[in-house]
């Protein structure tokens, strides 16, 4: 559509802008529409959620679901646990991933490729088959029913992506940069943290975002590896609202909304990294 444009540059830009805005709006509707529906439903009593025709503005507006969650310390604990686990996983994954990415980008060493292939494909064993032996291992390691069990488990899933992204990022950064530090007498460790890491910021943020989401959303292991309410995370908490005889629909929605808002805020805080732009490129020239 942008191919056949007139020579009139300002008009072309205007058309482009309108097209772009339409595209963005359609995209936002596709992405956010269902979430908006969730938000609306979280303010409805259980029955109205199933009303037909559906009500787009709650007829009976109620904050019941939110009150029920926020006044129950046991449920608030789910959120704290989720943030703690996700935060821990992000931190440790970034640490391990940056180091390994650096090694793979800057060194050649025996078994490099096989090691790389094993790390990537080890996550390909389906968790369902892995579950029972894995459960046994966690019990044996005395990690059962602790948040650490979840942190280490999620790292297995997040490190491969972190390594791939970080290796890729470091590869785009000219070697002269870190070598300058090393010639100045700083070791490769200093070069990594003082020169490479700042330049690779957008990559680090996107790895962090991905890692956070994986840890934030995981259910199967969170359910299996913990048992006391004090160690449950939000996805398990949501599942606990689905009983044998009754589902707490609006509470499920509310818990999901409450959980996602801080995540979105966190994302907004860090998203400057995606636009501040030209970081890596600027260094390159």
């Amino acid at each position: 559509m942008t191919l056949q444009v007139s020579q009139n540059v300002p008009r072309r830009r205007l058309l482009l802008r309108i097209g772009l805005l339409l595209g963005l709006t359609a995209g936002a509707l596709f992405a956010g529409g269902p979430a908006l529906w969730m938000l609306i439903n979280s303010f409805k009593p259980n029955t109205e959620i199933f009303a037909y025709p559906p009500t787009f503005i709650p007829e009976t507006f109620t904050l019941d679901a939110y009150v029920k969650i926020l006044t129950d310390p046991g449920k608030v604990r789910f959120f704290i646990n989720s943030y703690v686990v996700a935060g821990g996983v992000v931190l440790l994954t970034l640490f391990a991933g940056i180091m390994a990415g650096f090694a793979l980008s800057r060194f050649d060493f025996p078994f490099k490729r096989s090691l790389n292939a094993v790390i990537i494909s080890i996550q390909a064993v389906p968790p369902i088959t892995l579950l029972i032996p894995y459960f046994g291992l966690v019990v044996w390691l005395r990690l059962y029913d602790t948040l650490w069990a979840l942190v280490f488990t999620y790292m297995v899933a997040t490190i491969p992506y972190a390594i791939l992204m970080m290796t890729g990022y470091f590869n785009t950064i000219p070697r002269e940069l870190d070598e300058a530090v090393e010639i100045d007498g700083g070791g490769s460790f200093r070069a990594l943290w003082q020169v490479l890491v700042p330049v690779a910021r957008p990559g680090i943020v996107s790895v962090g975002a991905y890692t956070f989401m994986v840890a934030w959303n995981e259910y199967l292991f969170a359910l299996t590896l913990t048992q006391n309410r004090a160690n449950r995370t939000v996805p398990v908490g949501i599942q606990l609202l689905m009983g044998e005889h009754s589902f707490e629909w609006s509470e499920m929605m509310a818990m999901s909304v409450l959980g996602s808002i801080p995540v979105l805020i966190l994302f907004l805080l860090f998203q400057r990294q995606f636009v501040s732009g030209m970081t890596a490129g600027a260094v390159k020239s």
Partner: protein
Amino acid sequence: MQRMLAKVAAFGLAATLALAGCSSGSGGDASTPGQTPGGGEEITLDFSQWWEVELPPGMMRGLMDRFEEANPGIKVNLISNPYSATVDLQTAAAAAGTLADIVAINGASVYDLKTQGAITNLSTLMDDAGFDPAQLVSNDQIDGATYMVRALNFAYPMYYNSDLLNAAGVTELPDTRSEFEAAAKAVTDPDKNIFAWSLPINVQSPAGFDSQAWLWASGGRFLKDRKPNFQTPEIAKWLEFLKAQYDGGFITPGAFTQAEQQKVEEFTAGRNAMMNGSLAHIGGIRESNPDLNFTIGFVPTEDGFTGKRGLAGASWGMGIAENSEHKAEAWKLIQYVMSTDINSELATAATGFPGSVDSVPGYVDGDPLYELAFKVYQESEFVTELEGLPQALDLNRNLNENLVRLLQGEATVEQTQASLQEYWSGVLG
């Protein structure tokens, strides 16, 4: 840059500290034995169940507190698990030897847990404690021993939306399949989004008895002497009935993937005139939709049927882990839950029927709906045909798969019967 690094570092530090705090605070204190002030060894029983969320908030904990008072030196740690994950968690925990001392089980998984060696023989424990099994309403046994004690039974009668039926000119509750068919036809109005009933036959988590109830009501059974017996006229008529209902368009669309809960919501929202469902739904429906005018009745039978009606049922059972180090104390807790007063209280709160013969649920008196339900229960034979079978969940799933194939028109009634007979024989021998 600096600011961002600082942000990351602060966030990470806080997270790590919190993590360390949490895991040292709560890790393991539930299972480590401690000293009671009196000097005796204190033990903690883990009780894993899905009941806590089904009952009024705090109810389950309250019962346990009273048990602890009556039994100094024993503490109970309640572990809540999502109902849908009960079996998976128990299988994994049993394999790792970490199954909670007392586990809530339903009849669908008891046989497999026993085969896995996960749960212990309760008959021995009953003998040791001098407990008379005659106090139990039902004492199902596997290979001559008891592995599960039923705390509560849940009956699955028919729910009827009186307003919808009246509006369609149906003044009397259907008693036979043909009366039901007539009522279904009268009520169904796709333009208004109203259908006679829902038949959730998903393969994800087969629950409820929406198809089975129809067979059992008329005295039909899947098994004879624990062997599959699908090639009978009763089964054929039952399948034809379901097929006719589906082809007639009386069943809510989406049946093949509909979940048990969605069925309840359809009825609660007033879009289904009939529903086969657990009595436990009465409270929930009244709370969600106080305006819904509904009643309870028998599941209609085959025309001309005169025998004793069957009524589908599920249960809340309890077992004791083989790996438990405190089996005698665990039995004490089960005995406590089965004691006359406690069992009545539990039955009242959960709207189930007590598992102890002397207990009387408190809800029966005064509420006409519950009185009706109690009448249906008493006049029927309680059927839990799939409970206590090996791989009961898998058999149920196979039943649903075959029903989908039949309703979709990809298999005839005879083929469905043959296919069921073949698969179930493979499992049950």
